[in-house]
């Protein structure tokens, strides 16, 4: 992954509402998943409480600072098994 970039992924219902599943963004210092959500106009000023965030395949908090090359994903409620 190029340094200075973030990759953003959406799944299931979120992906279909947004109409895309993956995007790249220029990373700016201090950026968080919450900021990414707003910047990409994913709905309202923050994700609904039921949406979970993953950074590089690990669950993470909305306000975790992102690093160059991070993959940030917004996950609608899990309905597995």
């Amino acid at each position, binding site marked *: 992954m190029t340094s200075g970039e973030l990759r953003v992924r959406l799944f299931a219902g979120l992906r279909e509402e947004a109409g895309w599943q993956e995007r790249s963004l220029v990373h700016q210092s201090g950026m968080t998943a919450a900021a990414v959500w707003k910047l990409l106009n994913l709905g309202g000023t923050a994700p609904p409480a039921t949406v979970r965030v993953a950074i590089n395949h690990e669950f993470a908090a909305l306000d975790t600072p992102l690093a160059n090359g991070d993959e940030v994903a917004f996950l*609608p409620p899990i309905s597995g098994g």
Partner: protein
Amino acid sequence: MSPHPLAVLLDVELLVAPFDPLTSLAAWQARLMVGLPSIAAAEAHFIGRVRPVTSDGSPLEALELEHYPGMTEGRIAAFSLALAHQHGVAAVLVRHRVGRLKPGEPIVVVAVAADRRGPALRCCQELLETLKHEAPFWKREWVNGCGHWVAGNTPL
């Protein structure tokens, strides 16, 4: 076998095509015979299949299971290993379908081998609950050509 074996045989795979749970279990048992230092006296299994009706009772055409490639396998491996250590079991098997499933098709197999029935049964049960709530899977129910994302988990 020690109640807290240092090594756990961990075997997690997502499957894109229909599978037979008992065939998976037979292959796993054969690997245990080779891989475990001593026979595991207790084995607990769980098999889950697609219900023929949707959560609101309509006849189901198909169930679609979306996942997050990489993260889903990673999360399952991580909590399976943690639970295996916590319960002191010797081996864990997880097979989980993704993609489009027909009613009656197996979705999931969980199996745990241990020296005693308590750890085997408890670890199997807890692993199944964790799988339901911590592994990134999303279900879409298809009825008459229309798909609806399922909001939460099936009740216990």
